[in-house]
């Protein structure tokens, strides 16, 4: 019964790509870096499952053209300074990956394969090779690069709270999620690189129901952009990775009349070659008008590109083979697709170096917020590398120049006891809370064509769940204790989403309000930020510092779409 206590200079919560990059950099400044992850050690988070495609600004491309386009794509809501850093650092990190032994695709003439994104003129991703193993290979490369670094990595640890000493973080507490064994970690600085959470959708992001929202809010950090979620299109029955490559090459969504409805009705300019948010709005309107179901058509992808889009390795290859055995041919059959809210695009508000207003607390990767609901394929791979690298440097320097703060074990024990006291208790299963939350998010007027009515209704249901089901949750064993913490995190994330969505009374980028279908041109551009105030979420509109931004928004991606107002109004009850 000896409690497990770690002492480290830099604690990194989340061993995904951002965490690994950060650890690599931080270890150049301090003696010891400790990564903890709730999954198996070195599974490397969602990056390891990704295609490994990376937004990269190559030497022949112009950063200002790109930034201008990103601001356009995000309808002005872009943290331009952070985006500039991300774009500027993308090529050095790309070369770092190559130096680690990772391979990006090249064409027959030896040039990198770049795929333009979302019908934009400049922004493109560079693909990994071979198709289907990009993420796996990146993971291996990153882990190899950590050899010889003073980085300890621990798996199967669920962190449940960040401990503080005054306004300064002093470490974290959690438990081993297969044994319930308590874990105490004293650290000079803490970096959060978990995702901000999601709704366990059927697109490989099940595990994203992390407690990061709760961790950050309780620690005193500010959250930003929680009205923006990653709405993603997926085949109804199975998973398929690669939409961001398929669409630019000619893949398209068609309705039951064989019409490419995006091109015919909603965006003659872009057609299906756009962000999923817009395709999904089109899908919703089509189905509502009785023109569903929506299927994905690959017949217009040129034959010479088929090799590139056919899975050649990894789980994608296996998936494809199994589907074929079941009589499903992804490229020949009419596969019905459906939208799903996958994950939040909100994050912890940070400075450019990843620091927050809580001393010693940093955030990087998808724990920060960069995109605003619209998303280029390959941005996360890029941002996790650039922000991980940069924040790792900053937190390493910070920790090298300070003493270890007092770690109050008693306070830590109390924080942990809140969770551990549920162990062995019979009660409502975490999975049911997840289900309820998924259903609460599912209505179109909650997650796609949002309206005050839909959001309020969902919020009311959420409050019921919070008061009735949440206190009655039980965890029969440590596995379910971990799932319980996740389920609670998912509820909190959903609350942040609903409240922030209500606060933004306009439509912009990934956020669409059926009751406010236009941009709010009367007030200056703002972020919706959330902080904790007496246990409740307090929402604040924070103006964008446009004076310090190079691009003053002057054109808007959303203007390339017309969603007929009378059709949209059908979602207001």
């Amino acid at each position: 019964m000896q409690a497990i206590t770690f002492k480290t200079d830099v604690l990194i919560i989340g061993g995904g790509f951002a965490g690994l990059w950060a650890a690599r950099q931080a270890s150049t400044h301090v003696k010891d870096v400790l990564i903890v992850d709730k999954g198996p050690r070195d599974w490397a988070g969602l990056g390891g499952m990704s295609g490994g495609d990376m937004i990269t600004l190559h030497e022949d491309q112009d950063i200002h053209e790109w930034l201008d386009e990103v601001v356009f794509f995000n309808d002005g809501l872009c943290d331009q300074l952070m985006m500039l850093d991300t774009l500027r650092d993308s090529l050095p990190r790309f070369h770092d990956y190559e130096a680690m032994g990772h391979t990006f695709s090249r064409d027959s003439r030896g040039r990198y394969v770049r795929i333009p994104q979302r019908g934009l003129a400049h922004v493109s991703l560079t693909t990994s090779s071979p198709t289907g193993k990009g993420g796996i290979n990146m993971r291996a490369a990153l882990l190899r690069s950590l050899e010889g670094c003073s980085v300890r990595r621990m798996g199967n640890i669920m962190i449940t709270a960040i401990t503080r000493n005054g306004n300064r973080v002093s470490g974290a507490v959690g438990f081993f999620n297969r044994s319930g064994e308590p874990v105490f970690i004293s650290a000079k600085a803490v970096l959060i690189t978990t995702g901000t959470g999601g709704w366990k959708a059927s697109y490989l992001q099940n595990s994203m129901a992390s407690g990061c929202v709760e961790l950050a809010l309780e620690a005193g950090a500010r959250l930003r952009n929680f009205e923006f979620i990653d709405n993603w299109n997926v085949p109804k029955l199975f998973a398929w990775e690669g939409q961001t490559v398929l669409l630019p090459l000619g893949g398209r969504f068609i309705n039951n009349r064989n019409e490419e409805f995006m091109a015919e009705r909603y965006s003659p300019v872009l057609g299906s070659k756009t962000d999923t948010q817009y395709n999904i709005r089109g899908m919703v309107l089509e189905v509502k008008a009785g023109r569903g179901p929506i299927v994905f058509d690959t017949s217009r992808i040129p034959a010479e590109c088929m090799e590139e889009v056919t899975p050649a390795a990894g789980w994608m290859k296996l998936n494809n083979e199994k589907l074929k055995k079941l009589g499903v041919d992804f490229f020949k059959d009419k596969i019905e697709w459906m939208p799903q809210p996958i994950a939040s695009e909100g994050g912890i508000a940070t400075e450019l170096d990843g620091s927050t207003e809580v001393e010693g607390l940093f955030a990087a990767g998808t724990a920060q917020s960069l995109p605003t609901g619209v998303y280029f394929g390959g941005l996360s791979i890029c941002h996790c590398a650039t922000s991980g690298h940069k924040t790792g440097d900053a937190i390493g320097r910070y920790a090298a120049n300070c003493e270890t703060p007092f770690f109050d074990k008693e306070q830590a024990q109390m924080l942990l006891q809140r969770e551990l006291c549920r162990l062995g208790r019979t009660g409502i299963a975490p999975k049911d809370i997840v289900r309820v939350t998924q259903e609460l998010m599912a209505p179109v007027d909650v997650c796609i064509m949002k309206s005050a009515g839909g959001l309020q209704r969902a919020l009311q249901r959420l409050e019921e769940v919070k008061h009735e089901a949440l206190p009655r949750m039980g965890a029969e064993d440590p596995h379910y204790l971990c799932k319980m913490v996740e389920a609670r995190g998912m509820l909190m994330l959903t609350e942040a989403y609903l409240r922030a969505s209500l606060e933004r009374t306009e439509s912009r980028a990934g956020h669409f309000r059926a009751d406010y279908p236009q941009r709010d041109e009367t007030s200056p551009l703002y972020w919706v930020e959330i902080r904790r105030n007496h246990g409740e979420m307090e929402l604040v509109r924070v103006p964008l510092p446009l004076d310090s931004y190079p691009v003053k928004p002057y054109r808007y991606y959303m203007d390339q779409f017309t969603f007929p107002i009378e059709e949209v109004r059908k979602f207001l009850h």
Partner: protein
Amino acid sequence: MISSINEEACIGCGACVKTCALDVFRLDTHSDKTAPCMAACPARNDFREINALLQQSRLDEALDCLKRTMPFPALAGEVCSHPCEKPCSRHRLDSSVNIRGIEAFLGKRDVARSLRPVPRRHVFKVAVIGAGAAGLSAAWYLTEAGYPVTIFEAEAQAGGRMRYGAPEERADPAVLDAYASQLQSMGAQFRYSCPLQPWREHWLEELEDLGFRAVVLAVGDVRGKKPPHGLACTASGSVRVHPLTCQTSVRTVFAAGHAASDTSSPVQAMAAGRKAALAIGNILQGANPDMGMNVRLHAVEQKDISSLEKLERREGGEKGVLPLEDALEEAVRCLTCGSKARIAYPDDCMTCFACEVRCPAGAIDVDPFKEFHPRHLDRRFIGGAK
């Protein structure tokens, strides 16, 4: 969604358990097949089970499991040559699991434990003569079972050859002290500087008169010395014992360690001391001494593991002790030979195929069709016509 595991094909390597980010799998380690490490271990330490527990960070249970066969892991980490590592299946893939380092890690936790007195469950006392590896081990298991135990030691301190032997035989005296003190806390009594002189004619009767109903003779090598009075010896001069129970020619006297064997490593001596303790427990309960002790070994078949990920063996820090994170990771390298994986928590599978891709035996089947999610375009969620 996870569909099935072909139990016949499963080799129990745990690749699925170690891969799944959603924690869907568990291992069943109880099997009539003996892992190669256990078969080679004089003490029959069940490192398959121990490592499976460590893979789940169940540290205390792992230590308890080791303690069932190895009373002094911190000493074994030092003085054992670890023949268990030689036949390790992992050896065929990269290199054997560092069982020594894991044992030393558990040993370090073990000596740091403070133990409370064990409730006394028996009336009759047991005498242990000699506080070397065999005697301490017998005393440990007898005390743990609730017998009042008195240990008679000729020297001033416990440890036998591990303290007073040739330099290469010696263990860390601080660890010996710690174990002696743990034994004392549990309720065992030590009589130091108290040679019992078992060659005297009436030594057994004297012990019986003092209330001792069984004796463990663990005085070290007796060859070439005066033979213990009343006990049959082998041609070489060691005490003759039953190989399974360590029982001598006298029903209530058991001999363990070097006293009963021409050669005896400290771990062999600890194993013999344990057997003597179990057999004494049997006879004091009226049973045959070998009850439950005749365990047959069935070796695990060797299977193809060449497709598994190679992982570097972690070497220990100071004195070969692995730090916590390395010990847990080294345990992850264990292929838990002979176990079977099972689907323990199917409700959270995300259909990522990682388990199926990594399974070296092709035993796992994942259905590409996923869990049914709320469909946003259904009438219920979209409202009105579909």
